Protein backbone atom coordinates (compact mmCIF):
# COMPACT_ATOMS: atom_id res chain seq x y z
CA UNK A 1 0.00 0.00 0.00
CA UNK A 2 1.27 3.47 -0.84
CA UNK A 3 1.70 5.41 2.39
CA UNK A 4 -0.29 8.64 2.77
CA UNK A 5 2.99 10.39 3.39
CA UNK A 6 6.53 9.21 2.94
CA UNK A 7 9.48 11.39 3.79
CA UNK A 8 12.92 10.14 2.78
CA UNK A 9 16.23 11.70 3.69
CA UNK A 10 14.74 15.12 4.38
CA UNK A 11 17.31 17.84 4.90
CA UNK A 12 16.61 21.43 5.76
CA UNK A 13 19.03 24.33 5.81
CA UNK A 14 18.35 27.86 6.93
CA UNK A 15 20.52 30.53 5.38
CA UNK A 16 21.36 33.13 7.93
CA UNK A 17 23.97 35.87 7.64
CA UNK A 18 25.49 34.11 4.63
CA UNK A 19 25.85 30.82 6.49
CA UNK A 20 23.74 27.71 6.20
CA UNK A 21 22.41 26.12 9.37
CA UNK A 22 21.35 22.51 8.96
CA UNK A 23 18.31 21.93 11.17
CA UNK A 24 17.14 18.63 9.63
CA UNK A 25 19.69 16.04 8.64
CA UNK A 26 18.36 13.03 6.76
CA UNK A 27 14.97 12.64 8.39
CA UNK A 28 12.79 9.78 7.12
CA UNK A 29 9.35 8.66 8.23
CA UNK A 30 6.07 7.44 6.79
CA UNK A 31 2.47 7.34 7.85
CA UNK A 32 -0.36 5.28 6.40
CA UNK A 33 -3.97 6.31 5.83
CA UNK A 34 -6.06 6.15 8.99
CA UNK A 35 -3.00 5.92 11.25
CA UNK A 36 -1.36 8.38 13.60
CA UNK A 37 2.37 8.98 13.61
CA UNK A 38 3.63 10.92 16.57
CA UNK A 39 6.80 12.94 16.13
CA UNK A 40 8.29 13.46 19.57
CA UNK A 41 11.20 15.47 20.78
CA UNK A 42 12.36 18.43 22.80
CA UNK A 43 11.75 21.91 21.48
CA UNK A 44 14.31 22.79 18.82
CA UNK A 45 14.77 19.17 17.69
CA UNK A 46 13.22 20.01 14.32
CA UNK A 47 9.81 18.37 14.67
CA UNK A 48 7.85 21.52 13.86
CA UNK A 49 10.01 22.60 10.92
CA UNK A 50 9.76 19.08 9.54
CA UNK A 51 5.98 19.42 9.41
CA UNK A 52 6.24 22.91 7.89
CA UNK A 53 8.60 21.46 5.28
CA UNK A 54 5.99 18.85 4.37
CA UNK A 55 3.35 21.59 4.05
CA UNK A 56 5.65 23.84 2.07
CA UNK A 57 5.20 26.65 4.58
CA UNK A 58 8.82 27.37 5.36
CA UNK A 59 10.20 30.90 5.03
CA UNK A 60 12.15 32.02 1.98
CA UNK A 61 15.56 31.41 3.51
CA UNK A 62 14.98 27.66 3.89
CA UNK A 63 16.37 25.03 1.49
CA UNK A 64 14.78 21.60 1.53
CA UNK A 65 16.45 18.43 0.24
CA UNK A 66 15.33 14.81 0.06
CA UNK A 67 11.97 13.41 -0.94
CA UNK A 68 8.46 14.18 0.32
CA UNK A 69 5.80 11.97 -1.25
CA UNK A 70 2.11 12.55 -0.60
CA UNK A 71 0.19 9.44 -1.66
CA UNK A 72 3.11 8.55 -3.90
CA UNK A 73 3.37 12.00 -5.49
CA UNK A 74 6.69 13.76 -5.13
CA UNK A 75 6.14 17.23 -3.68
CA UNK A 76 9.61 18.72 -3.81
CA UNK A 77 9.60 18.89 -7.61
CA UNK A 78 6.19 20.62 -7.78
CA UNK A 79 5.87 24.33 -8.53
CA UNK A 80 4.89 26.70 -5.73
CA UNK A 81 1.48 27.03 -7.27
CA UNK A 82 0.96 23.26 -7.39
CA UNK A 83 2.11 22.96 -3.77
CA UNK A 84 -0.31 25.69 -2.78
CA UNK A 85 -3.29 23.91 -4.35
CA UNK A 86 -2.48 20.79 -2.33
CA UNK A 87 -2.54 22.72 0.93
CA UNK A 88 -5.97 22.69 2.50
CA UNK A 89 -7.15 20.13 -0.04
CA UNK A 90 -4.82 17.10 0.17
CA UNK A 91 -2.97 18.05 3.31
CA UNK A 92 -3.90 20.32 6.15
CA UNK A 93 -2.41 21.54 9.37
CA UNK A 94 -3.54 22.73 12.75
CA UNK A 95 -1.37 24.67 15.11
CA UNK A 96 -0.46 25.03 18.72
CA UNK A 97 -2.15 28.35 19.43
CA UNK A 98 -5.88 28.28 18.72
CA UNK A 99 -6.15 31.76 20.26
CA UNK A 100 -4.11 33.35 17.50
CA UNK A 101 -4.43 30.89 14.63
CA UNK A 102 -7.84 32.15 13.57
CA UNK A 103 -8.21 35.52 11.89
CA UNK A 104 -9.92 37.89 14.36
CA UNK A 105 -11.57 39.84 11.56
CA UNK A 106 -13.66 37.01 10.10
CA UNK A 107 -16.33 34.73 11.51
CA UNK A 108 -15.57 31.11 12.27
CA UNK A 109 -17.91 29.98 9.51
CA UNK A 110 -16.33 32.26 6.92
CA UNK A 111 -12.90 30.89 7.73
CA UNK A 112 -14.02 27.29 7.37
CA UNK A 113 -15.99 28.10 4.22
CA UNK A 114 -12.99 29.77 2.59
CA UNK A 115 -11.17 26.48 2.03
CA UNK A 116 -14.32 24.90 0.61
CA UNK A 117 -14.84 27.73 -1.84
CA UNK A 118 -11.25 27.58 -2.95
CA UNK A 119 -10.75 23.85 -3.28
CA UNK A 120 -14.23 22.56 -4.00
CA UNK A 121 -15.55 25.48 -5.99
CA UNK A 122 -18.62 25.88 -3.80
CA UNK A 123 -20.43 29.21 -3.92
CA UNK A 124 -20.60 31.39 -0.85
CA UNK A 125 -23.91 30.06 0.46
CA UNK A 126 -23.14 26.39 -0.19
CA UNK A 127 -19.70 26.73 1.37
CA UNK A 128 -21.14 28.36 4.47
CA UNK A 129 -23.78 25.65 4.80
CA UNK A 130 -21.06 23.01 4.49
CA UNK A 131 -18.97 24.92 7.03
CA UNK A 132 -21.83 24.74 9.52
CA UNK A 133 -22.07 21.00 8.88
CA UNK A 134 -18.33 20.66 9.55
CA UNK A 135 -18.58 22.68 12.76
CA UNK A 136 -21.38 20.39 13.83
CA UNK A 137 -19.22 17.37 13.05
CA UNK A 138 -16.43 18.60 15.29
CA UNK A 139 -19.06 18.74 18.09
CA UNK A 140 -19.54 22.45 18.29
CA UNK A 141 -22.95 22.90 19.88
CA UNK A 142 -25.35 25.21 18.08
CA UNK A 143 -23.03 25.27 15.08
CA UNK A 144 -25.23 27.53 12.95
CA UNK A 145 -25.00 30.30 15.56
CA UNK A 146 -21.31 29.72 16.31
CA UNK A 147 -20.49 29.90 12.60
CA UNK A 148 -21.58 33.52 12.63
CA UNK A 149 -19.42 34.40 15.63
CA UNK A 150 -15.93 35.79 15.65
CA UNK A 151 -12.95 33.98 17.19
CA UNK A 152 -12.91 36.23 20.26
CA UNK A 153 -16.40 35.00 21.12
CA UNK A 154 -15.24 31.38 21.24
CA UNK A 155 -13.30 29.52 23.94
CA UNK A 156 -9.84 28.08 23.25
CA UNK A 157 -11.17 24.54 22.87
CA UNK A 158 -13.92 25.74 20.58
CA UNK A 159 -11.38 27.59 18.44
CA UNK A 160 -9.24 24.48 18.09
CA UNK A 161 -12.39 22.64 16.99
CA UNK A 162 -12.92 25.33 14.37
CA UNK A 163 -9.32 24.80 13.24
CA UNK A 164 -9.94 21.06 12.97
CA UNK A 165 -13.15 21.66 11.02
CA UNK A 166 -11.25 23.98 8.70
CA UNK A 167 -8.43 21.48 8.23
CA UNK A 168 -10.72 18.54 7.56
CA UNK A 169 -13.32 20.40 5.48
CA UNK A 170 -11.84 19.22 2.18
CA UNK A 171 -11.10 15.68 3.42
CA UNK A 172 -7.31 15.83 3.20
CA UNK A 173 -5.20 12.68 2.94
CA UNK A 174 -2.91 14.03 5.62
CA UNK A 175 -3.50 16.12 8.72
CA UNK A 176 -0.55 17.54 10.63
CA UNK A 177 -1.37 18.59 14.17
CA UNK A 178 1.50 20.60 15.65
CA UNK A 179 1.17 20.53 19.43
CA UNK A 180 -2.62 20.88 19.04
CA UNK A 181 -3.43 20.74 22.74
CA UNK A 182 -0.41 22.31 24.41
CA UNK A 183 -2.20 25.63 24.92
CA UNK A 184 -5.41 24.11 26.22
CA UNK A 185 -6.73 23.03 29.62
CA UNK A 186 -6.21 19.39 30.48
CA UNK A 187 -9.90 18.42 30.17
CA UNK A 188 -10.18 20.22 26.84
CA UNK A 189 -6.96 18.53 25.69
CA UNK A 190 -8.51 15.12 26.12
CA UNK A 191 -11.64 16.16 24.21
CA UNK A 192 -9.66 17.58 21.30
CA UNK A 193 -7.46 14.48 21.04
CA UNK A 194 -10.50 12.21 21.20
CA UNK A 195 -12.05 14.29 18.45
CA UNK A 196 -8.94 13.95 16.30
CA UNK A 197 -9.04 10.16 16.77
CA UNK A 198 -12.67 10.07 15.86
CA UNK A 199 -12.19 12.21 12.76
CA UNK A 200 -9.29 10.04 11.70
CA UNK A 201 -11.45 6.92 11.95
CA UNK A 202 -14.31 8.55 10.07
CA UNK A 203 -12.33 10.08 7.23
CA UNK A 204 -9.36 7.75 6.95
CA UNK A 205 -7.01 10.71 7.13
CA UNK A 206 -3.43 10.02 8.09
CA UNK A 207 -2.43 12.08 11.11
CA UNK A 208 0.97 13.37 12.14
CA UNK A 209 0.88 14.44 15.74
CA UNK A 210 3.78 16.65 16.65
CA UNK A 211 4.21 16.79 20.40
CA UNK A 212 6.58 16.70 23.31
CA UNK A 213 3.97 15.10 25.53
CA UNK A 214 4.63 11.36 25.89
CA UNK A 215 1.31 10.83 27.63
CA UNK A 216 -0.47 12.05 24.50
CA UNK A 217 1.71 9.77 22.38
CA UNK A 218 0.94 6.69 24.44
CA UNK A 219 -2.82 7.21 24.17
CA UNK A 220 -3.20 8.44 20.60
CA UNK A 221 -0.34 7.36 18.36
CA UNK A 222 0.06 4.17 16.36
CA UNK A 223 3.65 4.83 15.41
CA UNK A 224 6.23 7.05 17.06
CA UNK A 225 9.29 8.78 15.65
CA UNK A 226 11.62 10.25 18.26
CA UNK A 227 13.68 13.17 17.02
CA UNK A 228 16.87 14.51 18.49
CA UNK A 229 18.87 17.48 17.19
CA UNK A 230 17.56 17.33 13.63
CA UNK A 231 17.70 13.55 13.23
CA UNK A 232 15.42 10.60 13.90
CA UNK A 233 16.74 8.72 16.90
CA UNK A 234 14.22 5.94 17.03
CA UNK A 235 11.07 4.83 15.31
CA UNK A 236 8.66 2.06 16.24
CA UNK A 237 5.07 1.13 16.95
CA UNK A 238 3.92 3.08 20.00
CA UNK A 239 3.43 0.04 22.22
CA UNK A 240 6.84 -1.38 21.31
CA UNK A 241 8.59 1.91 21.85
CA UNK A 242 7.16 2.38 25.31
CA UNK A 243 7.80 -1.23 26.27
CA UNK A 244 11.30 -1.56 24.81
CA UNK A 245 13.01 1.67 23.88
CA UNK A 246 16.04 0.96 21.73
CA UNK A 247 17.71 4.37 21.92
CA UNK A 248 19.20 5.79 25.10
CA UNK A 249 17.55 9.13 24.38
CA UNK A 250 14.08 7.55 24.23
CA UNK A 251 14.85 5.62 27.37
CA UNK A 252 15.85 8.87 29.02
CA UNK A 253 12.66 10.61 27.83
CA UNK A 254 10.52 7.80 29.23
CA UNK A 255 12.38 8.05 32.50
CA UNK A 256 11.84 11.79 32.53
CA UNK A 257 8.10 11.57 31.88
CA UNK A 258 6.02 11.67 35.05
CA UNK A 259 4.11 8.41 35.36
CA UNK A 260 1.78 6.86 37.88
CA UNK A 261 3.06 5.52 41.15
CA UNK A 262 6.00 7.86 41.26
CA UNK A 263 4.23 10.67 43.02
CA UNK A 264 6.50 12.43 45.42
CA UNK A 265 9.62 11.03 43.79
CA UNK A 266 12.13 13.23 42.14
CA UNK A 267 11.67 13.21 38.34
CA UNK A 268 14.51 11.70 36.37
CA UNK A 269 16.19 13.99 33.87
CA UNK A 270 18.66 13.66 31.04
CA UNK A 271 22.00 15.17 31.90
CA UNK A 272 23.42 17.89 29.68
CA UNK A 273 21.83 20.03 27.00
CA UNK A 274 20.81 19.78 23.36
CA UNK A 275 23.82 20.32 21.06
CA UNK A 276 24.33 23.58 19.23
CA UNK A 277 23.30 22.97 15.60
CA UNK A 278 25.91 25.45 14.41
CA UNK A 279 28.57 22.99 15.55
CA UNK A 280 26.97 19.57 16.04
CA UNK A 281 29.00 16.63 17.36
CA UNK A 282 30.69 14.70 14.58
CA UNK A 283 29.36 11.30 15.61
CA UNK A 284 26.09 10.53 17.37
CA UNK A 285 24.49 13.79 18.41
CA UNK A 286 23.31 12.33 21.66
CA UNK A 287 26.76 11.00 22.55
CA UNK A 288 27.73 13.91 24.85
CA UNK A 289 24.69 13.17 27.05
CA UNK A 290 24.53 9.41 26.62
CA UNK A 291 25.22 7.19 29.67
CA UNK A 292 26.21 4.31 27.38
CA UNK A 293 28.63 6.17 25.14
CA UNK A 294 31.60 4.31 23.64
CA UNK A 295 34.42 5.62 21.46
CA UNK A 296 32.64 4.56 18.25
CA UNK A 297 29.70 6.85 19.09
CA UNK A 298 31.91 9.91 18.99
CA UNK A 299 33.72 8.89 15.80
CA UNK A 300 30.81 8.28 13.46
CA UNK A 301 27.06 8.92 13.43
CA UNK A 302 25.03 5.72 13.74
CA UNK A 303 22.63 4.91 10.88
CA UNK A 304 18.94 4.43 11.55
CA UNK A 305 18.86 0.63 11.45
CA UNK A 306 16.30 -2.03 12.18
CA UNK A 307 16.93 -3.64 15.55
CA UNK A 308 13.75 -5.70 15.49
CA UNK A 309 11.05 -6.01 12.79
CA UNK A 310 9.56 -2.54 12.33
CA UNK A 311 11.73 -1.08 15.10
CA UNK A 312 14.42 1.37 13.97
CA UNK A 313 17.10 2.89 16.14
CA UNK A 314 20.05 5.12 15.39
CA UNK A 315 22.34 3.78 18.07
CA UNK A 316 25.61 1.86 17.84
CA UNK A 317 24.78 0.06 21.04
CA UNK A 318 21.31 -1.15 20.11
CA UNK A 319 19.76 -3.51 20.97
CA UNK A 320 20.07 -2.12 24.41
CA UNK A 321 19.12 -5.22 26.50
CA UNK A 322 22.72 -6.21 27.02
CA UNK A 323 23.83 -2.66 27.71
CA UNK A 324 21.02 -2.06 30.18
CA UNK A 325 21.84 -5.40 31.75
CA UNK A 326 25.42 -4.28 32.28
CA UNK A 327 24.33 -0.98 33.69
CA UNK A 328 22.00 -2.64 36.21
Amino acid at each position, binding site marked *: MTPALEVVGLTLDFRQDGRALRVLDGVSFRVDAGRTLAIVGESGCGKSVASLAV*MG*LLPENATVGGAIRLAGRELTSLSREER*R*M*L*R*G*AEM*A*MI*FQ*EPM*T*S*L*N*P*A*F*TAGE*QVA*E*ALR*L*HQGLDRAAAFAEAIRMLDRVRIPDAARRARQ*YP*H*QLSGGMRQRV*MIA*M*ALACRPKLLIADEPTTALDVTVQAQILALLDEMKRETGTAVILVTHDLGVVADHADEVAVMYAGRIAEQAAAATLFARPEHPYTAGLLGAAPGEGERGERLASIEGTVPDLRAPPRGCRFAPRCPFVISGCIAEPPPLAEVAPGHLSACWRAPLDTVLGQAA
Partner: protein
Amino acid sequence: MGIWLLRRVGQVIPTLLILSILIFGLQQLMPGDPAVILAGEERGDPAVLAQIRAELGLDRPVHEQYVIWMSKVLTGDFGFSWRIRVPVSELILAKLPVTFQLASMAFVIAILIGVPLGILSAVRKDTPADWAANGVALFGISTPNFWLGIMMILLFSVELGWLPPSGYVPLFEDPAQSLATTIMPAFVLGTGVASVLMRHTRAAMLTALSQDYVRTARAKGLRERVVVWKHALRNALIPVVTLGAIEFGRLLAGAVLTEQIFTIPGFGKLIVDAVFNRDYPVVQGVVLATALIFVVLSLIADLLYMAINPRLRNA
Protein backbone atom coordinates in the same frame (compact mmCIF):
# COMPACT_ATOMS: atom_id res chain seq x y z
CA MET B 1 -23.43 50.31 21.29
CA GLY B 2 -26.17 52.93 21.71
CA ILE B 3 -24.88 53.83 25.15
CA TRP B 4 -21.34 53.95 23.83
CA LEU B 5 -22.39 56.36 21.11
CA LEU B 6 -24.20 58.58 23.61
CA ARG B 7 -21.18 58.65 25.88
CA ARG B 8 -18.89 59.37 22.97
CA VAL B 9 -21.06 62.27 21.79
CA GLY B 10 -21.23 63.44 25.41
CA GLN B 11 -17.46 63.76 25.43
CA VAL B 12 -17.62 66.06 22.44
CA ILE B 13 -19.44 68.81 24.34
CA PRO B 14 -16.81 69.55 27.01
CA THR B 15 -14.09 69.20 24.36
CA LEU B 16 -15.65 71.91 22.25
CA LEU B 17 -16.34 74.10 25.29
CA ILE B 18 -12.73 73.99 26.43
CA LEU B 19 -11.62 74.64 22.87
CA SER B 20 -13.84 77.68 22.59
CA ILE B 21 -12.32 79.12 25.76
CA LEU B 22 -8.84 78.45 24.44
CA ILE B 23 -9.61 80.07 21.11
CA PHE B 24 -11.09 83.11 22.78
CA GLY B 25 -8.35 83.40 25.37
CA LEU B 26 -5.40 82.95 23.03
CA GLN B 27 -6.77 85.55 20.74
CA GLN B 28 -6.69 88.09 23.53
CA LEU B 29 -2.97 87.49 23.77
CA MET B 30 -2.44 88.38 20.12
CA PRO B 31 -0.61 91.67 19.70
CA GLY B 32 -2.49 94.39 17.85
CA ASP B 33 -5.72 96.19 18.64
CA PRO B 34 -8.63 95.45 16.29
CA ALA B 35 -10.08 98.90 16.94
CA VAL B 36 -6.90 100.52 15.64
CA ILE B 37 -6.99 98.43 12.49
CA LEU B 38 -10.68 99.10 11.88
CA ALA B 39 -10.27 102.84 12.49
CA GLY B 40 -7.90 103.09 9.54
CA GLU B 41 -7.06 106.71 8.82
CA GLU B 42 -8.74 107.91 12.00
CA ARG B 43 -6.72 105.67 14.29
CA GLY B 44 -5.22 108.69 16.01
CA ASP B 45 -8.61 109.82 17.31
CA PRO B 46 -9.37 108.34 20.77
CA ALA B 47 -13.09 109.12 20.39
CA VAL B 48 -13.34 107.03 17.23
CA LEU B 49 -11.44 104.16 18.85
CA ALA B 50 -13.72 104.30 21.91
CA GLN B 51 -16.76 104.32 19.71
CA ILE B 52 -15.55 101.27 17.75
CA ARG B 53 -14.72 99.47 20.97
CA ALA B 54 -18.20 100.16 22.33
CA GLU B 55 -19.83 99.00 19.11
CA LEU B 56 -17.93 95.72 19.10
CA GLY B 57 -18.28 95.20 22.83
CA LEU B 58 -14.51 95.34 23.27
CA ASP B 59 -14.88 97.72 26.20
CA ARG B 60 -16.45 94.99 28.32
CA PRO B 61 -14.45 92.53 30.47
CA VAL B 62 -13.10 89.53 28.59
CA HIS B 63 -15.27 86.95 30.34
CA GLU B 64 -18.37 88.97 29.49
CA GLN B 65 -17.27 89.15 25.86
CA TYR B 66 -16.87 85.40 25.87
CA VAL B 67 -20.30 84.73 27.35
CA ILE B 68 -21.95 87.03 24.82
CA TRP B 69 -20.07 85.36 21.93
CA MET B 70 -20.75 81.85 23.18
CA SER B 71 -24.44 82.37 23.79
CA LYS B 72 -24.79 83.61 20.23
CA VAL B 73 -22.73 80.73 18.85
CA LEU B 74 -25.06 78.28 20.58
CA THR B 75 -27.94 79.70 18.55
CA GLY B 76 -25.88 79.35 15.38
CA ASP B 77 -24.94 83.02 15.22
CA PHE B 78 -21.19 83.39 14.73
CA GLY B 79 -21.45 87.16 14.42
CA PHE B 80 -20.28 89.43 11.64
CA SER B 81 -16.90 89.90 10.13
CA TRP B 82 -15.72 93.26 11.47
CA ARG B 83 -13.90 94.02 8.28
CA ILE B 84 -16.25 93.08 5.49
CA ARG B 85 -19.55 93.12 7.38
CA VAL B 86 -20.64 89.66 6.28
CA PRO B 87 -21.99 86.98 8.65
CA VAL B 88 -19.16 84.64 9.68
CA SER B 89 -21.39 81.62 9.10
CA GLU B 90 -21.86 82.76 5.52
CA LEU B 91 -18.11 83.07 5.04
CA ILE B 92 -17.55 79.63 6.49
CA LEU B 93 -20.24 78.05 4.34
CA ALA B 94 -18.77 79.71 1.26
CA LYS B 95 -15.21 78.51 1.94
CA LEU B 96 -15.99 75.09 3.35
CA PRO B 97 -16.84 73.41 0.01
CA VAL B 98 -13.60 74.71 -1.48
CA THR B 99 -11.47 73.32 1.31
CA PHE B 100 -13.54 70.16 1.44
CA GLN B 101 -12.99 69.54 -2.25
CA LEU B 102 -9.27 70.16 -1.89
CA ALA B 103 -8.97 67.98 1.21
CA SER B 104 -10.99 65.15 -0.37
CA MET B 105 -8.87 65.14 -3.50
CA ALA B 106 -5.69 65.24 -1.44
CA PHE B 107 -6.99 62.41 0.73
CA VAL B 108 -7.84 60.21 -2.25
CA ILE B 109 -4.37 60.85 -3.68
CA ALA B 110 -2.86 60.04 -0.28
CA ILE B 111 -4.74 56.74 -0.01
CA LEU B 112 -4.00 55.73 -3.59
CA ILE B 113 -0.29 56.30 -3.05
CA GLY B 114 0.19 55.55 0.63
CA VAL B 115 -1.72 52.33 1.22
CA PRO B 116 -0.46 50.30 -1.78
CA LEU B 117 3.10 51.53 -1.19
CA GLY B 118 2.84 50.52 2.46
CA ILE B 119 1.58 47.07 1.51
CA LEU B 120 4.26 46.67 -1.15
CA SER B 121 7.08 47.60 1.15
CA ALA B 122 5.79 45.29 3.89
CA VAL B 123 5.40 42.33 1.54
CA ARG B 124 8.79 43.04 -0.05
CA LYS B 125 10.49 43.92 3.20
CA ASP B 126 14.26 44.52 2.91
CA THR B 127 14.27 44.42 -0.89
CA PRO B 128 14.96 47.30 -3.30
CA ALA B 129 11.17 47.79 -3.64
CA ASP B 130 10.92 48.37 0.11
CA TRP B 131 13.86 50.79 0.11
CA ALA B 132 12.39 52.68 -2.83
CA ALA B 133 8.99 52.97 -1.13
CA ASN B 134 10.63 54.20 2.05
CA GLY B 135 12.62 56.69 0.03
CA VAL B 136 9.45 58.03 -1.52
CA ALA B 137 7.87 58.32 1.93
CA LEU B 138 10.89 60.12 3.34
CA PHE B 139 10.75 62.54 0.43
CA GLY B 140 7.03 63.12 1.03
CA ILE B 141 7.47 63.78 4.74
CA SER B 142 10.53 65.95 4.51
CA THR B 143 9.59 68.07 1.51
CA PRO B 144 7.99 71.34 2.61
CA ASN B 145 4.60 71.86 0.97
CA PHE B 146 5.37 75.39 -0.11
CA TRP B 147 8.57 74.32 -1.88
CA LEU B 148 6.89 71.40 -3.66
CA GLY B 149 4.01 73.70 -4.59
CA ILE B 150 6.30 76.30 -6.11
CA MET B 151 8.26 73.65 -7.99
CA MET B 152 5.07 72.19 -9.41
CA ILE B 153 3.87 75.60 -10.52
CA LEU B 154 7.23 76.19 -12.20
CA LEU B 155 7.11 72.86 -13.98
CA PHE B 156 3.47 72.39 -14.91
CA SER B 157 2.34 75.98 -15.28
CA VAL B 158 5.36 78.02 -16.24
CA GLU B 159 7.42 75.51 -18.24
CA LEU B 160 4.86 73.12 -19.64
CA GLY B 161 1.81 75.35 -19.45
CA TRP B 162 -0.47 72.39 -18.69
CA LEU B 163 -2.17 73.69 -15.57
CA PRO B 164 -3.24 77.10 -14.28
CA PRO B 165 -0.74 78.30 -11.64
CA SER B 166 -3.37 79.62 -9.24
CA GLY B 167 -7.00 80.49 -8.73
CA TYR B 168 -10.04 78.36 -8.16
CA VAL B 169 -13.14 77.44 -10.14
CA PRO B 170 -16.06 75.91 -8.21
CA LEU B 171 -16.66 72.24 -8.95
CA PHE B 172 -20.23 72.68 -10.15
CA GLU B 173 -19.43 75.62 -12.39
CA ASP B 174 -16.87 73.85 -14.56
CA PRO B 175 -15.75 70.45 -13.24
CA ALA B 176 -12.80 70.08 -15.63
CA GLN B 177 -11.44 73.52 -14.89
CA SER B 178 -12.13 73.00 -11.19
CA LEU B 179 -10.00 69.84 -11.21
CA ALA B 180 -7.28 71.62 -13.18
CA THR B 181 -7.05 74.35 -10.55
CA THR B 182 -7.06 71.98 -7.56
CA ILE B 183 -5.01 69.01 -8.75
CA MET B 184 -1.64 70.57 -7.96
CA PRO B 185 -2.46 71.78 -4.45
CA ALA B 186 -4.26 68.48 -3.79
CA PHE B 187 -1.16 66.57 -4.87
CA VAL B 188 1.08 68.74 -2.70
CA LEU B 189 -1.14 68.14 0.32
CA GLY B 190 -1.69 64.49 -0.57
CA THR B 191 1.97 63.48 -0.77
CA GLY B 192 2.60 64.53 2.82
CA VAL B 193 -0.33 62.51 4.07
CA ALA B 194 0.53 59.61 1.74
CA SER B 195 3.90 59.28 3.45
CA VAL B 196 2.31 59.09 6.87
CA LEU B 197 -0.23 56.53 5.65
CA MET B 198 2.51 54.55 3.92
CA ARG B 199 4.64 54.26 7.05
CA HIS B 200 1.71 53.23 9.20
CA THR B 201 0.36 50.78 6.62
CA ARG B 202 3.81 49.22 6.33
CA ALA B 203 4.18 48.81 10.09
CA ALA B 204 0.65 47.45 10.50
CA MET B 205 1.08 45.06 7.58
CA LEU B 206 4.38 43.76 8.92
CA THR B 207 2.68 43.03 12.23
CA ALA B 208 -0.28 41.39 10.53
CA LEU B 209 1.86 39.28 8.19
CA SER B 210 3.77 37.78 11.12
CA GLN B 211 0.60 36.64 12.87
CA ASP B 212 -0.38 33.00 13.24
CA TYR B 213 -3.61 33.49 11.31
CA VAL B 214 -1.61 34.40 8.22
CA ARG B 215 0.16 31.05 8.50
CA THR B 216 -3.28 29.42 8.86
CA ALA B 217 -4.44 31.20 5.72
CA ARG B 218 -1.42 29.92 3.83
CA ALA B 219 -1.95 26.42 5.22
CA LYS B 220 -5.44 26.57 3.71
CA GLY B 221 -3.86 26.97 0.29
CA LEU B 222 -5.02 30.53 -0.28
CA ARG B 223 -3.27 32.55 -2.95
CA GLU B 224 -0.61 34.86 -1.56
CA ARG B 225 -2.64 37.74 -2.98
CA VAL B 226 -5.65 36.72 -0.88
CA VAL B 227 -3.47 36.16 2.18
CA VAL B 228 -2.05 39.69 1.88
CA TRP B 229 -5.06 41.68 0.66
CA LYS B 230 -7.74 39.92 2.66
CA HIS B 231 -6.35 38.26 5.77
CA ALA B 232 -3.49 40.59 6.60
CA LEU B 233 -4.83 43.87 5.24
CA ARG B 234 -8.20 43.57 6.95
CA ASN B 235 -6.41 43.56 10.30
CA ALA B 236 -3.73 46.02 9.34
CA LEU B 237 -6.30 48.57 8.23
CA ILE B 238 -7.80 48.88 11.70
CA PRO B 239 -5.18 51.33 13.00
CA VAL B 240 -4.73 52.93 9.57
CA VAL B 241 -8.40 53.89 9.28
CA THR B 242 -8.27 55.82 12.54
CA LEU B 243 -5.15 57.58 11.45
CA GLY B 244 -6.74 58.32 8.08
CA ALA B 245 -9.70 60.10 9.62
CA ILE B 246 -7.41 62.27 11.73
CA GLU B 247 -5.23 63.03 8.72
CA PHE B 248 -8.33 64.05 6.80
CA GLY B 249 -9.16 66.45 9.63
CA ARG B 250 -5.66 67.87 9.37
CA LEU B 251 -6.13 68.36 5.66
CA LEU B 252 -9.30 70.33 6.29
CA ALA B 253 -7.65 72.46 8.92
CA GLY B 254 -4.06 72.72 7.83
CA ALA B 255 -3.91 73.73 4.20
CA VAL B 256 -2.95 77.30 5.09
CA LEU B 257 0.35 77.55 3.24
CA THR B 258 -0.74 75.53 0.26
CA GLU B 259 -3.90 77.58 -0.18
CA GLN B 260 -1.80 80.73 -0.02
CA ILE B 261 0.61 79.54 -2.70
CA PHE B 262 -2.10 78.45 -5.11
CA THR B 263 -4.44 81.28 -4.06
CA ILE B 264 -7.24 78.87 -3.34
CA PRO B 265 -9.97 80.76 -1.47
CA GLY B 266 -10.49 78.09 1.17
CA PHE B 267 -10.40 77.88 4.96
CA GLY B 268 -6.68 78.38 5.16
CA LYS B 269 -6.74 81.63 3.28
CA LEU B 270 -9.81 82.82 5.20
CA ILE B 271 -8.15 82.32 8.57
CA VAL B 272 -4.82 83.83 7.56
CA ASP B 273 -6.50 86.95 6.24
CA ALA B 274 -8.67 87.16 9.35
CA VAL B 275 -5.67 86.88 11.69
CA PHE B 276 -3.77 89.59 9.84
CA ASN B 277 -6.78 91.87 10.04
CA ARG B 278 -7.54 91.06 13.67
CA ASP B 279 -10.99 90.05 12.48
CA TYR B 280 -11.77 88.21 15.74
CA PRO B 281 -15.25 86.87 14.92
CA VAL B 282 -13.94 85.25 11.75
CA VAL B 283 -10.92 83.72 13.50
CA GLN B 284 -13.11 82.39 16.30
CA GLY B 285 -15.72 81.08 13.91
CA VAL B 286 -13.30 79.35 11.57
CA VAL B 287 -11.25 77.78 14.34
CA LEU B 288 -14.37 76.59 16.13
CA ALA B 289 -15.79 75.18 12.90
CA THR B 290 -12.50 73.42 12.22
CA ALA B 291 -12.48 71.99 15.71
CA LEU B 292 -16.04 70.79 15.26
CA ILE B 293 -15.11 69.09 11.97
CA PHE B 294 -12.14 67.49 13.67
CA VAL B 295 -14.22 66.20 16.55
CA VAL B 296 -16.86 64.81 14.20
CA LEU B 297 -14.18 63.13 12.10
CA SER B 298 -12.60 61.46 15.08
CA LEU B 299 -16.07 60.25 16.05
CA ILE B 300 -16.45 58.81 12.56
CA ALA B 301 -12.98 57.26 12.92
CA ASP B 302 -14.11 55.54 16.11
CA LEU B 303 -17.27 54.28 14.42
CA LEU B 304 -15.25 52.96 11.48
CA TYR B 305 -12.83 51.36 13.90
CA MET B 306 -15.74 49.52 15.49
CA ALA B 307 -17.15 48.57 12.12
CA ILE B 308 -13.97 46.86 10.96
CA ASN B 309 -12.91 45.45 14.30
CA PRO B 310 -15.34 42.72 15.35
CA ARG B 311 -13.82 42.51 18.80
CA LEU B 312 -15.18 45.97 19.57
CA ARG B 313 -18.44 45.62 17.69
CA ASN B 314 -19.70 42.82 19.87
CA ALA B 315 -18.17 44.03 23.09
